[in-house]
């Protein structure tokens, strides 16, 4: 056999092919392929979480005023999971979706990682990173300049809260500096506090002993959706310890209404009439607490004052609210009203609560008062399972502030928002009045510098666009937000605070709970970015300003200040995480009323002080609503969802992820409408429509929901952000933008529960 070039090639090829084919029958190439394949799939962008020993740290969630205890799970010191703290007296392990998402507030694209100085136009989003020294110098410099001009009162501070050491430290700073303009976001609590003050003459937080009640009559309160502290309320509901019976009164089948024993739909804005109507039945049928009325009530029956003038009492006044009339006003079946009144009155421990949804908006004083009086005639004041007042935690007295002449002059100036003035003597803060005052002022703006901390007014204020315009008049805005929120993104300087899991602070009292529980939010991780505790920042600014302002802050830093404040409690708090200060509730009834009469005033005499002519007895006047009914045939009502944060702290990406497509669809808010209403307008489920109110317009999509009163459109709060990050911005519509504020004639607080609206097909 001759081997030429060709056959040599053929043989070689055959050998190579044969060898290759042969080796394919061995595991080697396959194993190799397996390894290569696995290796190629180790994509660098698929993270491999670092392992480490699992430990737990206890802390308390400060993402809302609920004050829930949390357990933070750490792996090698890295926080990896939030869980509810089963031992914490407030929430006993229950936690809301926001609490579970807390790690997404610690990390994420919404955070401000260093101090920033605005470049370009306001809100344009162009920033220059600056050092803390530069940032503090800039703010201190501006404040020093205004002070040296003798106008410290032109500095305002907007805070998310006025409870606890941080807001108090900032309040102290404002006083030492010389400005009365410490403003705070108002909530339903403010209206309840006023109702309590008017009837009982006491200052303090209203508390509802849901723990011991057996019948809850809720006037639209989102009992299971964030009202009264989410963790606490959900825990009570789950443990079956809360009321055996829940009656929910609101025009929309909310999640609370869905779980209630009875849902009573009511024409929105007429809740006061129903409360008075129920009182009417209870009085007529003698279903009230005689003992309480006889011994501790003033103005229940007709009375004559010292001048001999006869006054109608509450029992007479409610003659105006017979069931037939109330049924007409509220749209509730007439027979239902006495039935409900009897059920309420005959329950062993009934309680009536108000505050729409999560109680983010104050609402009308008459309504809060009417609901409180309903509790009173049931003899439910300062009783187990009733309504009482929790005095603010008695903080250790700090050294008295010495103020200089400039500060003293400044403090004598009237507040920018008119709170506490003759018009609104009982109101502490009226943030919603700030924009109009700013716009109305001629010449230089009455506010020259604005400090914003723990609040996001450019998102939460009614008629947000108008608020933004008003803020344009303020030459200097500094934000202390840890997040690039709407207000921070509109500021000139951002001096970022720590986020809740990095920030030391105490939580003085959980909202609504009838015991004084102080918890300590301990940092679970060292600050991740170049942020400063807002308390330290203010102490530093005070030091920079020097003089009396500086000497008002003798503490090295916030931690020293907090320890000094908490004194004996510090050790317990540091060790245990919370301390329950015994509070003897219910207090003996004769001790608790600081009214002129020394009694519980059904006829609140405090309401007649000043020049105002508010009829003292609660009466039903429809809570006004903006818009011409001829032009706007429907009513837009915001609602709160537990999966959406509607207040100062916005959603974490995880929360938005839970939101259903019938709430948000891509970039568009989905609004609920009764199918009957929509069909009348010739609209279909899923139609895109233009929603117009007197304050603005938005493109929304319709969702046919049978559980909403015809004629209404419901839109969730908490969407429509323009700042933060891609995970939140430009998703849906901010309902606040479509609704203006309506001032309560008594308190000046915002009562707008909705606005007239119309929809047109696009």
């Amino acid at each position, binding site marked *: 056999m001759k081997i030429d070039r060709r056959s040599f090639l*053929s043989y070689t090829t055959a050998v190579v092919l044969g060898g290759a084919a042969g080796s394919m029958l061995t595991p080697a190439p396959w194993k190799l*392929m*397996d390894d290569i*394949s696995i290796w190629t*799939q180790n994509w660098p962008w698929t993270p491999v979480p670092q392992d480490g020993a699992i430990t737990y740290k206890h802390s308390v969630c400060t993402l809302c005023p609920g004050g829930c205890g949390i357990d933070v799970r750490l792996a090698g010191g890295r926080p990896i999971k939030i869980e509810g703290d089963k031992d914490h007296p407030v929430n006993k392990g229950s936690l809301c979706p926001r609490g579970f998402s807390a790690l997404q507030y610690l990390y994420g694209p919404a955070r401000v990682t260093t101090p920033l100085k605005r470049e370009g136009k306001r809100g344009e989003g162009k920033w220059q990173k600056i050092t803390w020294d530069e940032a503090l110098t800039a703010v201190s410099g501006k404040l020093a300049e205004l002070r040296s001009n003798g106008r410290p009162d032109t500095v305002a501070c907007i805070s998310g809260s006025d409870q606890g050491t941080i807001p108090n430290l900032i309040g102290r700073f404002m006083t030492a500096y010389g400005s009365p303009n410490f403003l705070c976001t108002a909530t339903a609590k403010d209206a309840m506090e006023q109702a309590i003050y008017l009837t009982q003459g006491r200052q303090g937080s209203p508390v509802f002993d849901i723990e011991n009640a057996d019948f809850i009559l809720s006037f639209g309160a989102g009992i299971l959706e964030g009202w009264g502290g989410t963790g606490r309320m959900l825990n009570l509901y789950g443990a079956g310890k809360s009321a055996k019976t829940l009656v929910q009164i609101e025009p929309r089948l909310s999640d609370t209404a869905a779980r209630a024993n009875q849902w009573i739909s009511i024409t929105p804005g007429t809740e006061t009439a129903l409360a008075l109507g129920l009182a009417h039945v209870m009085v007529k049928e003698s279903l009230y607490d005689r003992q309480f009325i006889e011994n501790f009530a003033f103005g229940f029956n007709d009375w004559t004052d010292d001048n001999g003038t006869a006054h109608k009492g509450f029992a007479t006044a409610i003659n105006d609210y017979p069931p037939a009339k109330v049924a007409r006003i509220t749209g509730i079946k007439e027979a239902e009203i006495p039935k409900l009144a009897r059920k309420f009155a005959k329950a062993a421990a009934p309680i009536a609560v108000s505050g729409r949804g999560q109680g983010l908006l104050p609402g009308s004083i008459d309504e809060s008062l009417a609901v409180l009086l309903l509790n009173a005639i049931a003899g439910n004041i300062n009783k187990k399972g009733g309504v009482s007042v929790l005095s603010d935690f008695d903080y250790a007295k700090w050294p008295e502030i010495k103020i200089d002449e400039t500060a003293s002059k400044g403090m004598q100036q009237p507040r920018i928002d008119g709170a506490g003035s003759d018009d609104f003597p009982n109101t502490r803060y009226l943030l919603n009045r700030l924009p109009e005052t700013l716009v109305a002022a001629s010449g230089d703006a009455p506010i020259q510098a604005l400090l914003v901390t723990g609040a996001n007014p450019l998102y939460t204020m009614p008629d947000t666009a108008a608020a933004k315009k008003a803020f344009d008049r303020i030459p200097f805005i500094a934000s202390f937000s840890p997040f690039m929120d709407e207000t921070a993104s509109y500021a000139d300087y951002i001096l970022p605070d720590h986020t809740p899991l990095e920030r030391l602070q105490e939580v003085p009292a959980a909202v609504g709970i009838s015991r004084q529980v102080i918890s300590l939010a301990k940092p679970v991780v060292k600050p991740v970015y170049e942020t400063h505790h807002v308390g330290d920042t203010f102490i530093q600014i005070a030091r920079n300003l020097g003089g009396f302002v500086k000497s008002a802050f003798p503490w090295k830093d916030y931690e020293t200040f907090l320890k000094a404040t908490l004194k004996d409690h510090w050790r317990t708090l540091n060790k245990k995480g919370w301390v329950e200060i015994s509070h003897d509730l219910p207090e003996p009834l004769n001790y608790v009323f600081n009214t002129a009469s020394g009694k519980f005033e059904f006829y609140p005499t405090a309401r007649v002080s000043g020049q105002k002519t508010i009829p003292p007895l609660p009466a039903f006047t429809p809570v006004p609503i903006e818009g011409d009914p001829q032009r706007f045939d429907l009513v837009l009502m915001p609602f709160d969802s537990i999966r959406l944060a509607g207040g100062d702290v916005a959603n974490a990406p995880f929360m938005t992820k839970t939101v259903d497509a019938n709430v948000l669809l891509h970039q568009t808010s989905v609004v609920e409408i009764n199918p009957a209403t929509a069909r009348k307008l010739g609209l279909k489920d899923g139609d895109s429509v233009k929603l117009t109110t007197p304050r603005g317009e938005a493109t929304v999509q319709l969702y046919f929901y049978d559980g909403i009163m015809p004629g209404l459109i419901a839109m969730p709060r908490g969407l429509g952000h323009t700042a933060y990050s891609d995970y939140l911005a430009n998703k849906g519509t901010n309902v606040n933008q479509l609704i203006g504020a309506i001032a309560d004639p008594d308190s000046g607080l915002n009562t707008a529960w909705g606005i007239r609206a119309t929809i047109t097909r696009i």
Partner: protein
Amino acid sequence: MNETPLIHAGVKRCSKWQFSLWMAGVTAVLLWGVYAMFLCWFKGLNQTNMNDAYGFALWIWADLAVIALGGGAFFSGFLTYIVGKDELKNIINYAVIIGFICYSSALLILAIDIGQPLRGWFIFWHANVHSMLTEVAFCLSCYFAVLTIEFIPLILENPKLERKPFLHHLSHNMHGIMAIFAATGVFLSFFHQGSLGGVAGVLFGRPFAYREHIFIWPFTFFLFTWSAAACGPCFTILVTKITEKITRKKLVKDNVIHLLAKISGWMLLTYIIAKTADTLYWAMVTAPNAGFTLMDFYASPTYNIGLLFAEIVLCGFIPGLILITKRGRENAFLLNTAIVLAVIGVSLNRWVMVLQVMAVPVFSFNDWYTYLPSWQEVATTVLPVAYGLIVISLAHRYLPVFPQEKELNPVK
């Protein structure tokens, strides 16, 4: 040696320019598909409009459809080599080429369709023998190997290649044992066509797809194999007819076509009778057991009862009856109508067994799921069509695909 022409002597082919122009056009479409394919590979399946409810969509339909239509290869092979219908040797080459195109396309589409193409071989390596898809993948790849083997001798008969002694011998030797390969192909096809039927039929969580008792085994298997055997040859005839139209030449004698058509007709008719029995049992027993009425499955505007009618009567009984009658299949118009209907019918059946399975809501509180393919999905599905045209064009131009061509079209 370089003087050997690429094109066989004695046949007429279009000019180089005409051919290049045509190929350029088809290649452009192919490249569009290739671009979409790379998008899917490098960016992931977010390029598609599939979703968690529609995990199987256009691609899986295309897979099932091309495998059914490519069934012409195994069934013609079966008839030719095993049954011994010698006339069919005049069309078997083309059936093999079409089968090759269909099966390679199916494999390509599968490679695009899976989320982790680099792990595609796990289906072999970590095989779960209970999964229909494993059986499909195994038989599909083996049968593709068989089709390649069946195609190779034809390629080797290109005048230029045939001059190389090794290739010449290889071609000859492969021919010698072709019956064994064909038999293996038939064996494999029976399995994977059947398993493809099982793919939907075993889904007991999907009442629209699920079949019980003998209707799952052997019926779902039988129905798919039978329908592929019935409609695959129809597709072969259809493509032959189209090729004849385009080349303006008669390529296969009528008696060959009529024989294949007649066999297909009987296959189709028996299939559709079995399918009707299956549908009746499913509609009257299986579905009601799960709480569904037949009309629950056809309650959407897209998926209405007309679809069932179209599949069974219009594209089943009618073409079946046309093809079994001598007058029907010998009338050009009726024959063409019947083969087109049969091809549509089997494609429709595969569509229903993939997309409607996904569309039907199983929960009473869910709506019908809707799906419209993205352009990337369409492009990658058109890609095999362009690829097929290219292969057919090349094969027709350079290979002796139709043994009767010279006889039917003598070059003057």
